[in-house]
């Protein structure tokens, strides 16, 4: 079992300023401190939709890597997006799922099927080109560079420990200034 912020720090070391990243919920709060960037896409509007926003961005900007940092509860709300992404096959989309088995942002309740659900299996069956499954930080650190060099769509399941309930300031993710900064940065890059 890995710690989320350790995984995010390892990932951030391999990204460039040009990469678009879509982190969700608790991951988003960790991520914007680890890798502050106007190309962090933080406003998804409804739980589960990050992977769909990511597909739109990947189709719209094929010159950029688009990295979505999904949650397990979030992905369960939009499992069909795996099939849609597999079919659309964007070569520049990298889909990570931080699997901690809980709705961490909503009281820490377990997800349905916790310890039974096979997210990498879902992604593989949906047609992702490459699928990874990580539960050891050292192995993740060794392979993350090669993962990001793969042609997408790429899926990576990160088995992480829950961080427990946390109070968060959601205006950091959903304020209009966040979306304007993203839009301006994307148009300029």
């Amino acid at each position, binding site marked *: 079992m890995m710690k989320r912020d350790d995984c995010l720090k390892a990932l951030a070391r391999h990204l460039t300023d040009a990469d678009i990243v879509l982190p969700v919920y608790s991951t988003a709060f960790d991520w914007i401190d680890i890798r502050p960037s106007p190309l962090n896409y933080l406003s998804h*509007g409804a739980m589960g939709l990050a992977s769909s926003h*990511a597909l739109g*961005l990947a189709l719209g900007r094929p010159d950029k890597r688009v990295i979505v940092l999904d949650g397990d509860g979030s992905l369960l709300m939009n499992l069909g997006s795996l099939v849609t992404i597999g079919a659309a096959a964007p070569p520049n989309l990298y889909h990570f799922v931080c699997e901690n088995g809980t709705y961490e942002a909503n009281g820490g309740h377990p997800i349905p099927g916790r310890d039974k659900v096979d997210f990498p299996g879902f992604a593989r069956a949906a047609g992702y080109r490459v699928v990874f499954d990580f539960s050891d930080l050292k192995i993740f650190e060794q392979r993350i560079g090669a993962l990001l060099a793969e042609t997408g769509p790429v899926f990576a399941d990160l088995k992480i420990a829950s961080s427990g309930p946390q109070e968060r300031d959601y205006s950091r993710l959903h304020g209009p200034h966040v979306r304007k900064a993203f839009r301006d940065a994307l148009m300029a890059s």
Partner: protein
Amino acid sequence: MQPSVSTAIRAPEDFLLGSSIIREIKASGIEFVVSVPDITTSEGLLRPLSQESGKDTEPRLIRVCKEDEGVGICAGLSYCGRRSLLLIQQTGLLDSINAIRGVAVEYALPICMMVGLLEKEPGVVPRQSKRYGVRIVEPVLEAMGITYHEVEGEADVGHIGPAIETAYAQMRPVVLLIGRRPS
């Protein structure tokens, strides 16, 4: 919020051409059509769009499993300056209300939706339909503050281009309600 727009009642014998609608879609700069199949628009719109998808200058069709996915996809595309159209049925519109609320309305994004009205009677305005699922569509859109246009005859097709242009110019969603099967 912008006022909604309805067209005049159309005669039952009026007609609607899919080719006219597709011409408007393409003239509006739509590069992607994102869709869950809808029986009202299946043959007249989705079929020809799917046959042309991927060819030069033709909109690319992205098939999605569920309509709210399409709201997210269209949002992502809009940030890239790429225009898209979500082609769905009113059941999918109703199922996607939370995504439309959050992404399209509260984030003020130009999500353009073309919505087939399943089982609407030709020549009957949607809110006077005998079908509950049709009657409630316009009141729901009004409650959400979303502009809509009825497209039931050839005379209505001219609303499509300006509606899409306005959505992108003013950064707000729009719904185009397809009231009969285009031929």
